[in-house]
């Protein structure tokens, strides 16, 4: 059975696109036929994070308007046999498609794919309405910051009002050193405030910047963020995976300096 999942957040810059790229790649790695749809019309970026930007000829709006067939617009990722991308249009805006067309588009894709992931634009306007229209399930991405959590709460409310079947939370860019110092909300703090299931937490990791520079998702690397994303993928498929220990392996020197600071 195929599942349509929207990745959303309300606030911009919390890591929706990076999350979509890594979860999509992870699901493909686990053997599921997966397609990623960039619904951010006018500000497309998922292609860049995936490293597939040079292969775009047709896009989502071309498919909706009938300028090309779906097969012509889908970009097959040569690195992962099960992974496809439907890129967004860069020279149009959110009014170029409507929720009914998006619902039709995702229905068509369900015949060929196990997972259909929609990367939602920031905001709660038409772009958001388009992205959630065909989705059965939502993953809300937030960071442990006041502004992002407030927006996540608003988005969760809107998703519930739209009868979204299931809503889970991803806490991104968590820094365990700051949580330990008491300068950052912990995963449990966020869970208490939002009262929603947490499907995973991803540490703030320099490797994410390098991976985006190179256009190579890091879900199949041994970085801590990569492992966190792969665990989220497994939980999406229904596997019970315990939460990852986000405390990185620290060398003796760093531990000594921590100890001296505390003393």
């Amino acid at each position, binding site marked *: 059975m195929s599942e349509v999942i929207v990745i959303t957040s309300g606030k911009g810059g919390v890591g929706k696109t990076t999350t979509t790229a890594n979860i999509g790649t992870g699901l493909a790695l686990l053997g599921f036929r997966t397609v990623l749809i960039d619904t951010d019309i006018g500000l497309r970026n998922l292609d*860049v994070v995936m490293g597939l*930007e*040079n*292969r*775009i*000829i*047709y*896009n989502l709006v071309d498919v909706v308007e009938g300028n090309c067939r779906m097969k012509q617009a889908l970009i097959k990722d040569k690195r992962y046999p099960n992974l496809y991308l439907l890129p967004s249009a*860069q*020279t149009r805006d959110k009014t170029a498609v409507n929720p009914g067309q998006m619902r039709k588009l995702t229905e068509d894709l369900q015949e060929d794919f196990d997972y259909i992931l929609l990367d939602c634009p920031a905001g709660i306007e038409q772009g958001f309405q388009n992205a959630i229209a065909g989705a059965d399930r939502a993953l809300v991405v937030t960071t442990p910051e006041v502004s992002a959590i407030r927006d996540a709460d608003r988005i969760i409310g809107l998703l519930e009002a739209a009868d979204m079947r299931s809503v889970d939370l991803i806490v991104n860019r968590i820094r365990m050193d700051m949580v330990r110092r008491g300068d950052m909300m912990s995963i449990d703090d966020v869970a208490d405030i939002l009262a929603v299931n947490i499907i995973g937490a991803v540490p703030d990791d320099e490797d994410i*910047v*390098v991976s*985006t*520079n*190179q*256009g190579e998702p890091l879900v199949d690397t041994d970085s801590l963020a990569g492992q966190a994303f792969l665990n989220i993928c497994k939980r999406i498929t229904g596997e019970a995976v315990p939460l990852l220990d986000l405390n990185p392996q620290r060398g003796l020197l760093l531990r000594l300096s921590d100890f001296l600071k505390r003393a």
Partner: protein
Amino acid sequence: MGRIFCFHKSNSGKIATNRLKMMLISDQSGCAPGLIEGLREELVEVLSRYIEFDSGKIELCVTHTECAESKDRMSAISAVIPIRRFTNMRKG
């Protein structure tokens, strides 16, 4: 340890800069990046019949100018191809 003492220097920042240049060409010209990439590949194919050059060092850029006569804004695409040497025989 390598990271701390900068023994290992990563080049992903440079990769990012080069990728961005190509993206901006596409964005500013409104031309699909797949088509620009196709243009680049075919340029390399045709030019290599006449000259020897490093295909990785081709620079494409889009400039916006005003046409001298009609004052219309127009875009121009230009390619800089550092030549290693001219070949004396036409290949292919």
